[in-house]
């Protein structure tokens, strides 16, 4: 599924994220999303999962890990 997002800031500093789904968006929704100015570059929601395996388990042994699982301690955004 293709997903885009734009992150904005409200006047009081709170974040507001618009998600856009090009395959199902109406022309009005597409136009409104296009007009939104993001504080970050246009972001597509990652779909890149890395498959890993867990040993010693039955047929339901595959675990998918998101790239963000790799570490913690990033700077706060």
């Amino acid at each position: 599924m293709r997903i885009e997002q734009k992150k904005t800031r409200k006047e009081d500093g709170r974040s507001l994220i618009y998600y856009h789904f090009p395959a199902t968006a109406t022309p009005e929704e597409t136009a409104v999303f296009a007009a939104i100015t993001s504080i970050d570059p246009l972001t597509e929601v990652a779909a890149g999962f890395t498959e890993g395996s867990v040993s010693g388990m039955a047929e339901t042994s595959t675990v998918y890990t998101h790239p963000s699982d790799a570490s913690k301690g990033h700077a706060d955004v």
Partner: protein
Amino acid sequence: MSELRWNPTLEEWVITATHRQDRTFFPPPDYNPLAPTMPGGFPTEIPASTYEIVVFENKFPSLRSDPPDPAVEGTSLFPVVPAQGICEVVCYTPQSDTELAALPVAKVEQLVHVWADRFAHLSERSYVQYVYMFENKGREIGVTLTHPHGQIYAYPFIPPTAEREVSAARRYFERNGRDLYGDIVSQEIEDGQRVVSENAHFIAVVPFYARYPYEVHILPRAVRPAITDFDDTEKAALAAILKVVMEKYNNLWQRSFPYIMAMHQRPCDGTSIDYKYYRFHIEFYPPYRTPDKLKYLAGSEAGAGAFINDTLAETTAKTLRETLPF
């Protein structure tokens, strides 16, 4: 003011959030803060004439990324720390007169992707230990805005229920070499009496140990500790079974069915490999035990933590299983 106060008798944090007393309470339709902002109209939380799905930081948060200093000074017996975290609101649709169950399954699937995206982003924050997604639906639950929406709390600690579940699953795995939720899924499928619905990747059951009469849990058939572990096919299957369960609820008594929808997944202090003994799942807690009788959390539940369920899980599961859609 908000802060975390430690309860040494239960070894758990209590969040104080006094500013939430002032939050918006059942505004008239023209002043719905979760609707799009119409030209010339009331400026809502979303300054656009429409949207698909939006997520924004709660105006009345219990936790915030830049929390104020605590109002009181703690002691070694009563520690107090700033209530650091994130509280977000997820608006599912610009339509106010609808609900998640009534949205197309494709929309629910999009929402699952948004949940996964928020889990991925919030779990990266250094101070976040647990990302909890939930929906309160219905006045009976204490909802103050009827516009279809859910919430996300990114806690700086692992909340007690999650801690207890994860610890129990870890101990079970150490004792048996198998994951607890895998055995629960297998046994529920084998027994069949408590199964409400199932598809290729999930089952919905009134669990053997249900605390509420129409409590339903949605469990994955495979080991998936977090929502980010699902591939696109599994996300579509999760959306499909979610919609089936919510539609069954609404069809049960031919009215919009209130509930708490709670998403349980692994903490953020490790990877899904670290939590291979635990599985993401969704729990629904409906407050009604009959069409006109609420299940109150009274003396035994609130005071002793011991739930009394007035029904048998096998009976309510059968009722839900035989309620449309099949």
